[in-house]
């Protein structure tokens, strides 16, 4: 199926969240949130605990009706049109969702019976890397195996939209690799994927777009490039570790900077106040080579999603105070 057929009418966003709010009594979990998500793309919703990620995703899944605003998934109201929507979406809960005595093989067979187009449970188990654990009761599966089973269940209907709550939480590196592969395949098939995560490196690897929530509001949204470009500026230090101690002030002079621009943090470990330019980097390596000093580690201070996220979220906290 092509990406166009995965939207409400053949084009445009698969998911629309328009001025949505979610309140629980006095608590406002989500306030005036608006965004769209598109077929063939992965949107990562990030934010600290209590930012409104789960409330948002549960409104999109149809578990909760928004207190205000509107949500549409494939053109349908998730809470009101669940009968028509359920066969076309995949849902991965943050935890649980499987009866403890059931084995992966049993639960995949059971869930595939709910859909018109049945699947081969053995193939699904193989794709999720669960063949060896096929007959192990859920209660005895490892954290990573449980996550992979939960993901396999979400992908069972070959969904047009997949909602994944913390898909890589508690998963070992090998498991993450498997999950990453499944999500990339899903994106390539044209599905719209919305995931929440605290794993920023994972989001950076997978997501086409990022939405950062704080205190129930969207504080930043865009592609990774846009997020990095738009996050508040601030000095991002670089770090250097050498084989032997060096004279930090001497290095400053070679880099054309005032003394103090390079500071010795610990023995053989130095902080450069801002990321060095390419020329400074070349000068620094030349200086160290002349001094017969080996570079053991160098973090050039290039910004990544984690830097941008932490800056945004810390800024929000300061504002809150």
């Amino acid at each position, binding site marked *: 199926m092509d990406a166009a057929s995965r939207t409400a009418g053949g084009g445009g966003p698969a998911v629309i969240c328009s001025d949505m709010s979610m309140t629980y009594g006095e608590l406002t979990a989500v306030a005036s949130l608006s965004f769209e998500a598109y077929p063939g793309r992965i949107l990562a919703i990030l934010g600290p605990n209590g930012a409104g990620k789960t409330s948002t995703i549960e409104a999109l899944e149809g578990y909760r009706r928004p207190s205000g605003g509107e949500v549409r998934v494939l053109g349908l109201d998730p809470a009101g049109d669940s009968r028509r929507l359920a066969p076309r979406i995949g849902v991965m*809960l943050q935890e649980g969702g499987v009866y403890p005595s059931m084995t992966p093989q049993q639960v995949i067979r059971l869930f595939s019976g709910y859909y018109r187009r049945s699947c081969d449970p053995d193939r699904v188990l193989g794709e999720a890397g669960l063949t060896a654990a096929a007959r192990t009761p859920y209660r005895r599966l490892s954290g990573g195996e449980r996550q992979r089973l939960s993901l396999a269940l979400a992908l069972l209907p070959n969904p047009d939209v997949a909602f994944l709550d913390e898909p890589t939480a508690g998963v070992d590196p090998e498991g993450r690799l498997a999950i990453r592969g499944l999500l990339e395949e899903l994106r390539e098939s044209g599905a719209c994927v919305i995931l929440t995560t605290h794993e920023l490196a994972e989001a950076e690897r997978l997501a086409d777009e990022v939405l950062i929530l704080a205190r129930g509001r969207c504080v930043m949204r865009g592609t990774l490039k846009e997020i990095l470009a738009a996050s508040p500026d601030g000095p991002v230090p670089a770090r250097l570790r050498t084989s032997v101690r060096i004279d930090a002030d001497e290095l400053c002079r070679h880099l054309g900077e005032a003394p103090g621009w390079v500071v010795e943090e610990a023995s053989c470990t130095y902080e450069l106040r801002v990321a060095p330019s390419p020329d400074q980097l070349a000068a620094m390596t030349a200086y160290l080579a002349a001094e017969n000093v080996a570079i053991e580690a160098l973090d050039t201070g290039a910004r990544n999603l984690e830097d941008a996220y932490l800056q945004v979220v810390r800024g929000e906290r300061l504002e809150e105070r």
Partner: protein
Amino acid sequence: MTEVARAAEEKAGAPLHRRLIVQSKAEVAMALRRGESLLVTLGIPLILLVFFAEVHAFTVAHEKPIDFLAPGILALAVMSTAMVSLGIATGFERGYKYLKRLGSTPLGRPALITAKVAGVLVLEIIQVALILAVAAGLGWNGGGNAGEVIAVMILGTIAFSGIGLLLAGSLKAEVNLAVTNGLYIVLLLVGDMIVPLSRYPGWLAAIAKALPAAALAEGLSHSLGHSGGVPGSSWAVLIIWAVAAPAAAALAWRWE
């Protein structure tokens, strides 16, 4: 057919009968794997049947205690399966987020509840066969109207399933476990199952007669015995509970 329509057609839920069959099978399989559930649904009724048939703890109007006990224990079996086993299991399913997960599939709430009741009925067939076989071995010589027996048992099953699902759908799993077990003991004592209503004080007998346990036991006693048809009051109480309890369960139901 447009591409969008074809996609929607391909990605539909399975037909209702198929969803019901797969879910009912799963419900029965899960119930048979729960040891504590088998103790309540089969173990306790059979132990009580044999014990009170042999010990003669209560004087009853019947010639043989087993004639009173067999229908009472059948009523107990229905209550055990429909209310206790179903209710407690469903409460834990909610705690495990299994119900929440099912809520996002095409299974649907009506199919899930129907499958759960179908699973209860299958277990009840096993219970009835075992209890009647043991009762016959203890000298019970029942008869009566099979149609009435089935109708009374179905009404009792619906009423107790409604009570079990009402508690499971509105209480935390551990609280539900305690409340359901407590209710089971109370209804066992005031349900005309092992202690005849004739031995209760008048006020307690009046309350007991308004509860589904005594109505079910009395209905089964008449329909399985040789003392005429099921009294109108038993039908009325069972029908009211069979309508009200599932309706209340549906209103109070939460997937998580």
